[in-house]
């Protein structure tokens, strides 16, 4: 089921597709979408198939189905923007906006564009002109893409994303993103020019802001970043690289042969930065308002 290709209807409302899709792989993705290809190859991309549905006197509907190597990668693409109207594509296409969880839904619709995660597929279905008819067709196509496919859970790494940190920091869940590339990280939270955390397809990462949950109107935020490498040695090496690039005044000091947990907190220009290295995972917090906050949060990670 997970390996099967979705079967798209020949027609959706007024729109009709060609007999076969066009296919794009990692070698020619830049010909198809210019620099946007960097996003997809930043994840474990396999190939893309796309159709242009056409109708007389109507703007086209573009269906792009990205076949990723894992479900986690497809989730990651959707996680870059949780905005839009959550839709439940497991229900009939007439009924898909009812009783949908707003907590990291599997499909989101907004102004003609449907984005969805279905097992190892990330798909974009876009009507170039939104009308009631095109919306219905877009949702019907989304339903066809996800029909009879598995719904694997979110990446395990998200289990390390607390809903809150004591005493009063609340996760902005709608800003939580999962990725494997420093280009993607920089597009969410800019750290710097180089790949200072040694991210690649063997690693995984997530980032999200936390905001004070008191009613004072204080919009102070901290940024949480979690990086998991394929092994402990790579994580330790990445942390050393981070120190050289981001904290050059604080060279990483470790005793030869030491392989245990490492915790540090430093003041920098926008507050306090803290991290904890444990095994193959490094958790960072940025922009903490004071040392005590950084310490309390690090202790909870």
């Amino acid at each position, binding site marked *: 089921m997970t390996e099967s290709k979705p079967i798209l209807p020949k027609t959706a409302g007024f729109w009709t597709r060609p007999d076969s899709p066009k296919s794009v792989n990692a070698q020619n993705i*830049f010909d198809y*979408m*210019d*620099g*946007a290809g*960097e*996003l997809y190859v930043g994840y474990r991309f396999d190939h893309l198939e796309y159709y242009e549905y056409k109708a007389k006197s109507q703007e086209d509907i573009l269906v792009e189905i990205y076949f990723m190597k894992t479900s986690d990668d497809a989730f990651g693409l959707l996680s870059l*923007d949780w*905005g*839009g109207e959550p839709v439940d594509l497991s229900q009939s296409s007439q009924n898909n906006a009812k009783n949908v969880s707003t907590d990291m839904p599997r499909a989101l619709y*907004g*102004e*003609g*564009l449907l984005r969805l995660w279905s097992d190892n597929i990330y798909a*974009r279905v*876009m009507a170039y*002109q*939104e009308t009631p008819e095109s919306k219905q067709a877009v949702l019907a196509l989304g339903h066809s893409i996800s029909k009879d496919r598995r719904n694997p859970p979110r990446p395990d790494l998200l289990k390390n994303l607390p809903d809150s940190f004591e005493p009063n920091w609340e996760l902005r869940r709608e800003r939580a993103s999962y990725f494997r590339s420093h*280009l993607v990280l*920089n*597009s*969410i*939270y*800019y*750290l*710097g*020019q*180089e790949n*200072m955390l040694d991210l690649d397809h063997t690693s995984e990462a997530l980032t999200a802001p936390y905001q004070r949950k008191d009613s004072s109107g204080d*919009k102070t935020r901290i940024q949480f970043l979690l990086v998991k490498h394929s092994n402990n040695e790579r994580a330790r090496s990445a942390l050393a690289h981070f120190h050289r*690039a*981001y904290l050059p005044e604080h060279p990483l000091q470790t005793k030869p042969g030491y392989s245990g947990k490492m915790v540090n907190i430093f003041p*920098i*220009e*926008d507050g306090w930065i803290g991290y904890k290295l444990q095994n193959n995972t490094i958790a960072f917090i940025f922009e903490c308002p004071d040392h005590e906050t950084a310490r309390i949060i690090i202790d909870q990670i």
Partner: protein
Amino acid sequence: MSQKGKPLTRRDFLRGTLGATIGASVLGTKFMTAGGSAASKSLVTIVRDQSAMDSSNNVNANILKTMLDQTLIKFTGKNTANDAWLSLVKPEDTVGLVPTPHLNPTHQEVEDAVKSSLIDAGIPEGKILNAQGRSANPGACTALIGLPALKAHWLTGIGTVLKLYILYSGMPRNYHDENNAKLGEIWNLPSVRGKTRLVLVDALHPLCDKGPQPDPRYKWAYNGLIAGTDPVAVETVCLRIIMEKRKLMRGEPWPLSPPPLCVEAADKDYGLGTSNWNNIKVENYGWDEELLLG
């Protein structure tokens, strides 16, 4: 853009060791405003008409023509659009039109209006070329008219004016992410340098989020044309509009990331124009709601 070979980090912006234009886009601080004198200001015009597009975002060609004429007259100070064009290009020029091809492409109506207006001014149709794309040869043109569409970009922060000539490099991937700072060097290629007679930004239906693919939720009807001959000044105005729209849309800071290093680098490293807001004179005409100039 780096400091003595050291790659830039977020901390460089926080320290203020880089220019304020970039800092403003990354951290929400103020745009650079120090210095500047009236005599040396770069003029950027904004002409808007609320009816330039209908409710389905179809462009009204007649209104667009009027906006283009007004842009040309106001920018050059000439009495007619024909005279305005002839102060920018000559009938013997081979004029390359350079629209934005991807993400939020330039409206065909804008290209058509410019071409038609140039022909009316006496530029032979056969000497007006589309000079965009990997196979385009800017060396064959003696004048270039930049026709970018207003948009943010996920690899360069902003992807409007300075990114417009990226395909002339033959290596567009070399200018993504941190290397977007080098975009200015393309404007100094021998086949390009000094040829840009006007930058006319299609700001009818801009895109304020970076993509990488178009998301209609982040497009809005600005219904404007933005023009200037200083590409950096025009880009700086575009950047401010994008930043203001993002703030308005989310009601909270929504920095552009990665930072558009190219804007200040085009000023400081490549000498293409000014990114200092105090050195830019913005004149706006027509519809003035949500101008988004801060």
